[in-house]
């Protein structure tokens, strides 16, 4: 098995997991959800960040599941934890206490300032459709030192204005301090096409790297807001052979999340 796989054999979700894992540093504390965020954290733990601490909002620390959970509430995600507690400990005495380095969030929609909507969508007809709401999303967005968003790259998901501002990023381009928020705010957006960051001056989304085989035009066309792009656009590194082996053989052998 070559050290780097030919890109044809690599799935976008595998590139996303590897890109996310690279953003996690050893010794850090991360609030993760089930799905790609957990896969990403697992990959980091089994490679360069063995002492990364993973927190599940429900009250589970350092889960080590042997079977793939279908969600936070699945007993499979309680397996071999080092601590079972609850929201008050995880979200209160850790997240609100200010010791969470990274929070992963999914989204129905995000805007250029990393504001997240997980509550509702407006259909063309004008009809409003409701979804899960915040759960821990607003808490994580308000308080984590770095927020990482993972979502499909689609101009109906990355757009100028979200239908509902569930979880604040740099609202209106304002600094977190101006907004009265403690956490550092949006840090990365990892999609199936690219990795985005946020400009330190404008606080607006900027293109950091394109996944191998993805064209800039494609990304711009799939982005509903003006995206800052550097002259030289680096490629998102492909997962190493070892990363792929871990993802495919150990972390998600049944391809529940690496689809």
């Amino acid at each position, binding site marked *: 098995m070559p050290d780097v796989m030919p890109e044809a054999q690599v799935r976008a979700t595998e590139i996303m997991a590897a890109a996310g894992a690279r953003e996690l540093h050893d010794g850090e504390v991360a609030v993760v959800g089930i799905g790609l965020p957990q896969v990403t954290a697992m990959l980091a733990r089994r490679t360069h960040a063995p002492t990364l601490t993973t927190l599940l909002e429900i009250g589970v620390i350092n889960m080590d599941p042997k079977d793939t959970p279908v969600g936070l509430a699945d*007993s499979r995600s309680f397996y071999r934890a080092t601590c079972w507690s609850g929201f008050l400990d995880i979200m209160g005495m850790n997240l*609100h206490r200010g010791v969470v380095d990274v929070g992963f969030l999914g989204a129905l929609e995000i805007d250029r300032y990393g504001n997240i909507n997980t509550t509702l969508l407006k259909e063309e007809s004008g009809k409003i459709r409701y979804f*899960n709401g915040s759960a*821990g*999303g607003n*808490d994580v967005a308000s308080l984590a030192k770095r927020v990482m968003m993972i979502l499909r790259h689609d101009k109906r998901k990355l757009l100028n204005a979200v239908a509902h501002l569930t979880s604040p990023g740099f609202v209106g381009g304002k600094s977190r301090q101006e907004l009265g928020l403690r956490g550092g705010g949006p840090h990365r957006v990892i999609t199936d096409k690219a990795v985005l960051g946020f400009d330190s001056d404008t606080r607006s989304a900027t293109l950091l790297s394109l996944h191998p085989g993805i064209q800039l035009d494609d990304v711009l066309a799939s982005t509903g807001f003006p995206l800052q792009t550097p002259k030289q656009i680096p490629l998102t590194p492909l997962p190493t052979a070892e990363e792929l082996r871990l993802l495919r053989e150990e972390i998600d052998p049944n391809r529940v999340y690496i689809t």
Partner: protein
Amino acid sequence: MSEKVKTIAEVVKTVPDGSHIALGGFAIARNSISVAHELIRQQKKNLTLSQSVVGLETDLLVGAGQVKRLIMGGGSLDRFGPVHCVNRAREASREFAHDYSSLSITFRYLAGSLGISFIPIKCLLASEILERLEAGSAAEDVRRMKCPFTGEEYLLMRALNPDVSFIHVQIADRDGNCQIDGPTWSNEVQVKAGNRIVVVTEELVPTEVIRRNPERTIIPGHRVEAVIHQPFGGHPTGVFGCYDYDAEHLKLYVNHSKRAETFPEYVKNYILGTKDHWEYLEKVGGAKRMSELKAVQIQGY
């Protein structure tokens, strides 16, 4: 002390229409299904429900049309789908639900459990969640304030004290001392904030068993009004250490819940069509199915 061990029907009879009820489940974990079913059988009306993360139990009650107001942090059925009935109700009326976040609901319960009438938090600020709360009937529950010591801006929230808090646990004794296996999300504060506390337990154990691990007693008996012994009382949700969630039945549920037209059929077949939780369990597969779901001890599911 008067006998606390009662049937679900007896206890639910004592819950007036219009009550504020807090159920102890989370998505598809440790839901008070047996309680939700009986609240439906007895057709309790105009209920207010509060919960950090809603799941099947709450989706059932909302779908059955018995809930007037939902105070929620969020919710889903994990990978089995969204809480369709709850979402339809939110679509029908912007005032139906007061949307918060997991932690803000938990802090409101914490305040209630401690007997303080308000608590500060650094969440919801600069979000449309707060704008909506301030613009609607929840305005009387939230206030912005600067910390008198640090000058930092906070949101103050009113304590939540449910009229009745229900919790589903793995073991309890006849006095109501109960112990939970696995994570407890907001259970301790949700229950201790309740003005009445009802425990539904998978196993009814002698107090000697409780005394063996007193540090695991999450709710002490003197706070508990009634104890209901109902094995598989959380089906089709999972109860760690006892049984796994019932994936087939959850899919069947979502197939009914995803459309308003088909939901009543679920209620008719599985709830109104069964006289109690035992009959319900027979309907969904009885002893054979329950044995299939029974947890493997070491792994807990």
